């Protein structure tokens, strides 16, 4: 058994953990995405953002977070790149640069959207 496989197997692909964030007990998956959407609060968002290196969320970052949440609430899925551009009137480059961990792993996580589990493998 190679070490990498063993580590992955031990960790489990959907490992969950309970944490106290923004004064609230939340359930996170192993990549730090909220497991229960209802756990999201602005305080949780600020705590998640702080962990990704954002000391204080700017107005621009809050605009992105609110757009992501509203879009997800309405369509039941995260916006595509073209939806983000149209809805926020920003380039993807600007958006990716706005969050240290980018859109998929950064903005979406702070906004409390589900883990995209994109096929990056």
């Amino acid at each position: 058994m190679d070490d990498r496989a063993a580590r992955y197997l031990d960790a489990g692909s959907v490992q969950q953990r309970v944490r106290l964030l923004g004064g609230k007990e939340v359930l996170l998956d192993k990549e730090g995405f909220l497991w229960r959407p209802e756990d999201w609060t602005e305080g949780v968002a600020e705590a998640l953002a702080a962990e990704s290196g954002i000391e204080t969320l700017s107005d621009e970052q809050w605009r992105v977070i609110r757009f992501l949440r509203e879009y997800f609430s309405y369509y039941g899925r995260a916006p595509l790149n073209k939806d983000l551009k149209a809805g926020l009137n920003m380039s993807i480059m600007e958006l990716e640069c706005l969050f240290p961990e980018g859109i998929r792993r950064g903005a979406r996580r702070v906004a409390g959207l589900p883990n995209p589990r994109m096929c990056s493998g």
Partner: protein
Amino acid sequence: MIYLDNAATTFPKPASVLNRMLEKYLGMGVSPGRGSYDLATEAEAFVDDTRSRAAKFFGAPDPERVIFTSNATDALNIALQGMLKPGDHVVSTRLEHNSVLRPLYHLRLKGIIEYDLAPFDGSGFVDPSEIAAMIRPNTRLVVMTHASNVLGTVQRVSQVGEVCANAGVPLLIDAAQTAGVIPIDMGAWGLAGIAFTGHKSMLGPTGIGGLILSPETEIEPVRFGGTGVDSASPVHTETFPHRLECGTLNLLGIIGLYEAFSFLERETMESIRRREMALLSRLRDGLSRVSGVTLYCAEDLADHVGLLTANIRGMDPGKVGAILDGDFEIAVRVGLHCAPLVHESLATAPEGGVRFSLGPFNTEEDVDRAAFAMAEIANAVGRC
């Protein structure tokens, strides 16, 4: 959109292939070989013709050892689970896709096999002598990719075939990235098996692939069911190809494969490859001029297929891929490319890289725009 994800699946497919699929299926879309009526017999004959074309295409001696599968992963699963027995040892490589790594890992986890993985060198090639050194008395199979889906390096399979022949060990190759663009000769290379898919460089549809076996290859079925042959028996049919096929075949896919062979015969693999490699060279040169771009194993493209992987220093490949898509309308594949050990060896894990893969319908303008886009993104790293 500029589509540079042809190593995942070629897009678009030739219109002639798709049109003929529809036309043929409209007239013959019945269950091949399952009825006594003429159309079922005609459909079965068509399936057999496609087996013969596949055998000829891959230099295989027996069309009845052409097994239709869903894709290369399916073919590899049938082969690995059907060929290996408790106590067997397998040699493979660190270049493999999860289509090989995961079945091997599964079999090891179940306590059925042990395996060793040969490393690749700084240019992306596995030295056949590394494989020879790993062969043990109980080694029952060498399985390896013909071309890396991350690096594009075409492996020295015929030399590995000699190693295996000398050791009396069967050699199975994963031809997912080469079938349709690199000539493969089962007989001359001493291959026990070839796993291929129809939807990449073969230019056929998704959902069809194949496992081609040499007549000497010993394999047990791992799936059982209806074959249209000897239906009274509770025992699954032992004769090939039905021994490894069950359920109604994907006739639409098989028609697509047949038409893909026709397309490749008309256009010729040589001319498609020549064109793709000229574009790859142009892309490599364009990316090489971009400050901040790292290319992997792309110094010499002589033994490559039309793909390469790059990174922009200081930017996650996931971000690069999103920007290429959203701002430049360029589709690429980012991440680990289902080949985690390649990225581990390149020290690009866990983020992976940005893979550009070319197809027969790409143009010089496509690759120039890709290089331009990468330069724009690289320029933004300091500001991002």
